[in-house]
């Protein structure tokens, strides 16, 4: 997985927004992560501690809000969680199609000290 490059982006985004708001410190970073992205919270935190060491984000707390991936049934139009090795709808057996739900990966907000 590529938590290193992803965590670099997280730090860069937070530094930008902190700068824009003339913050002296970022105390908290709130992330939204879809489970389909496969990112591991522990590894993000691990890299974060190293990468943020010399930045305004040092010692910020990271919170992760996770989102379960959902498929949309093309027959009954219901959203459902897939079972392994199938994309079929558990309700009607119809074919499921991918949706954006569960693929989120963004910095929702940060908490700063001015």
């Amino acid at each position, binding site marked *: *997985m*590529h938590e290193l*490059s*992803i965590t670099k*982006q*997280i730090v*860069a*985004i*937070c530094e930008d*927004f*902190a700068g824009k*708001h003339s*913050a002296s410190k970022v*105390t*908290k970073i709130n992330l939204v992560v879809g489970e*389909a*992205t*496969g990112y591991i919270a522990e590894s993000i935190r691990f890299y974060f501690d190293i990468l943020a060491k010399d930045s305004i984000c040092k010692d910020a707390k990271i919170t992760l809000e996770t989102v379960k991936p959902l498929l949309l049934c093309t027959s009954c139009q219901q959203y459902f969680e897939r079972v*392994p*090795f*199938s*994309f*079929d709808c558990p309700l009607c057996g119809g*074919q*499921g*199609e*991918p949706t954006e739900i569960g693929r989120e*990966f*963004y*910095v*929702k*907000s*940060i*908490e*700063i*000290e*001015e």
Partner: protein
Amino acid sequence: MEHTEVTVMEDIFERNDKIALETNQALSERGIFTVNIMGAPGVGKTTFLVRLIQLLAKPAFVIEGDIESDIDTKKLLDLGIAALQLNTGGACHLESTIIADAVKTVSLENGYLFIENIGNLVCPAEFIIGEHIKLLISTVTEGSDKPYKYPLAFEKADVIIINKADLSAYVDFDEAYFIKGIQALNKNAPIFKVSAKTGEGFGEVAAWITEQAKQINSSIKK
């Protein structure tokens, strides 16, 4: 101490994607149709490229991102195919910044650029790098459950290749199950069954790629 919450709502991939789109624009202006080649290690990405490039009417260039060693690049250069080895230092996928720099050094106008991504079915699918299309190579020997295990790669692909067709008789590849998975994920990508060893099926692939490249060129001119 006063704590203020600042709304950010910025996608983690946004910065990568922005650079990729700039690269794509620059490549389009140079008339270079760019293909991002994805697939697990050993599916035949390099062998496939050697076959395909021989059938294309315009010049081609290969950027090798797959492994740090330059074995694949040497093989291509020995065959007279222009190629450049990237130093990816153990990364699990290519990102847009490394490609943005690399394409500036590529001496090609009006032709095809193939970027062999790092052999991995998970990470490369999440990062656009400047390509016009993504070409995913799977094989009859990998097992027919790949679309179910790596759905994003199959969903994002613009064309899917089933390579090593010459080995079909020796493995129990459940093609119907494999195709059913792809159809749920991706209604548009054509699927070509080929053998990079015998050359079977490559005429169709070359014709399809040639057609795609024409459409990109005509859409740039507008």
